[in-house]
């Protein structure tokens, strides 16, 4: 790993800002659901914050991503505005998708958040098209497809990596390996010793990295982005992590071995990262507390905005099916 991809203090603080936002927003989302104020299907990413925070810190606004149902962390890290995010979660007309998409289909093209899919594996084929468009535009922008360990076993993964490799597309395939697919363990479903091994079958770089380590994760992400921008083609990144809250909200995670979960939560990357920033003198407790307080008040405002916003009119069912509205 070239040292040039090591994050400096400013970069680390940038990453932490994103991590703090992701962390706070997940905590809030689960509180809001419990409060009954907003009902939604929710796939907590608690524990996986470092991965998209570091990845996004290596991206530009014009870089694009395709993410999945468990993707709010990817999107917030990429710059999805809180108010329209929360309004969409609440199914309000002020939501980014006018309340039509919801948590599994959040979209915000201005920040390159092009597709959120609820279909396992389907973020990848579409990211290739974004990469092809970048080639055609002669732009050095890149596309990132995020997906899980379970998704690495579906056909779309294979077709996408092969096409991206043959066409040398500027696409980064970011696998967030949290060791479970719904209730199925990695070992029960995935034959590869590590998902990164599959890169050999496409003659592209495959890297397994500790996705909870901001420095390592940033270095790997930045290098993959550099390769893509340079026209050297795709990279498969396998970022190791863990989801603390089970598959989705309400999931009794009895299927997760107690010790495994306990160990993972004790290694919660967020407080560790925070402590390290202070220990390394990159930020003071006061500075970080200020950042976090700021974030909390932004989330307060966003939630309130969502709750105060109007629901969509039912004639929205006839709009956006096609460009032309369907006659009543």
């Amino acid at each position: 790993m070239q040292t040039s991809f090591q994050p400096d203090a400013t970069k680390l603080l940038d990453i932490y800002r994103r991590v703090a936002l992701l962390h706070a927003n997940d905590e809030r989302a689960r509180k809001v659901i419990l409060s009954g104020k907003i009902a939604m299907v929710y796939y907590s990413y608690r524990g996986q914050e470092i991965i998209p925070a570091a990845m996004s810190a290596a991206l530009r606004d014009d870089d694009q991503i395709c993410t999945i149902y468990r993707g709010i962390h990817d999107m917030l890290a990429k710059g999805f505005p809180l108010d329209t995010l929360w309004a969409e979660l609440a199914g309000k007309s002020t939501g980014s998708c006018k309340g039509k998409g919801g948590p599994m289909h959040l979209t915000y093209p201005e920040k390159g958040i092009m597709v959120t899919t609820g279909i396992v594996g389907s973020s990848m084929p579409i990211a290739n098209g974004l990469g092809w468009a970048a080639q055609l535009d002669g732009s050095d922008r890149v596309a990132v497809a995020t997906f899980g360990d379970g998704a690495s076993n579906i056909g779309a993964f294979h077709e996408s990596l092969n096409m991206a490799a043959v066409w040398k597309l500027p696409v980064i395939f970011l696998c967030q390996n949290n060791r479970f697919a719904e209730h199925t363990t990695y070992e029960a479903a995935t034959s590869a010793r590590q998902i990164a091994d599959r890169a050999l079958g496409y003659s592209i770089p495959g890297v397994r990295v500790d996705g909870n380590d901001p420095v390592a994760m940033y270095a790997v992400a930045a290098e993959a982005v550099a390769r893509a921008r340079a026209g050297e083609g795709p990279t498969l990144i396998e970022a190791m992590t863990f989801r603390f809250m089970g598959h989705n909200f309400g999931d009794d995670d009895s299927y997760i071995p107690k010790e495994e979960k306990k160990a993972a939560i004790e290694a919660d990357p967020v407080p560790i990262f925070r402590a390290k920033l202070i220990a390394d003198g990159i930020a003071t407790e006061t500075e970080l507390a200020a950042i976090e307080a700021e974030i909390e008040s932004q989330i307060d405002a966003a939630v309130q905005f969502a709750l105060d916003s109007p629901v969509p009119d039912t004639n929205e069912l006839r709009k956006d099916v096609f460009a032309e509205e369907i006659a009543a």
Partner: protein
Amino acid sequence: MSTVTETAAPPAKAPKAPTVTILSALNKALTDAFEADPKVIALGEDLADKEGGGIAGVTRGLSTRFGTQRVRSTPIAEQAIMGAAIGASLAGYKPIAEIMLMNFTTVAMDMIVNHAAKLRFMSGGQTSVPIVIRTMTGLGFGSGGQHCDYLEAWFAHTPGIKVVAPSTPEDAYGLLRSAIEDPDPVLVIENLPTYFASVPGTLPDTNYRVPLGKAAIQREGTDITVVSYSRLAGEARAAAASAAERGISVEVIDLRTIAPWDRETVLTSAAKTGRVLIVHEAVRQFGVGAEIAATISEELFGQLKKPVKRLGGAFSPVPYSKTLENAYAPDAARILDAILQLAS
């Protein structure tokens, strides 16, 4: 979960007024089928008990009782799931493949349509594919555009595969048992929102069957025929009850089997009432209702009092916002309105 203990306990011993759910009926149908025939096997994502016995618990208990060789959790790979089911059936087994949600059949259509539905014909009857594909769908939980489509018309249009969709626990049991015993591929469409509704009664015993291809007249009537299936058959029953209060006698037919559908029962009722309403959650345009309406209009030309009416889902993807989701599919109130119009 309660459905499982219910299944385990013999109805007789069940605590006071026993109730059943579609989920418990499906679970018992599977358990009884595994008991009855060692060739019955099952596979799907998170199907075995170690993985929770299915996301809704339909297969809960099976792997513990019959072993993980017969009841296998799979990788997320619907083509591989369907292929494994097809291959095992060619070798004499009766696989039950679960495609967790109906929208996920879209990644396995080649296996289902080009292979499962065609191998008997293309092999000149040398091979056959006696599989069951269990899949689930149904709006109402805010899961949005990719988790609650109603694609039954695609399969009904496909020669070589049968399609059933139960709306009661008895039918869920009887149709699933018949589907498993059928010598050809059968798609069993389960409706998520109706899984858990408890209705009084006990679970059918192991000999109970509902023949494929036979509709159920769930309520007799003389003025109007309402044809439906799956969740909306329940809404139709509710609408029929309100109509009765208004002095309108509605006959409610639950198709139960969508393909091949029960022409005789439907045409007999339509000839009797002369007024027909067809209702489903699937998009109305080019939906199942079109075939039924076209057939009735052709067969009963000149005998109908009113044109055949169809109600279906909106012509749009299923929306997220509760307001829009509620407006998407017909419900008892909209069915009643249509009944009143037809009656006028």
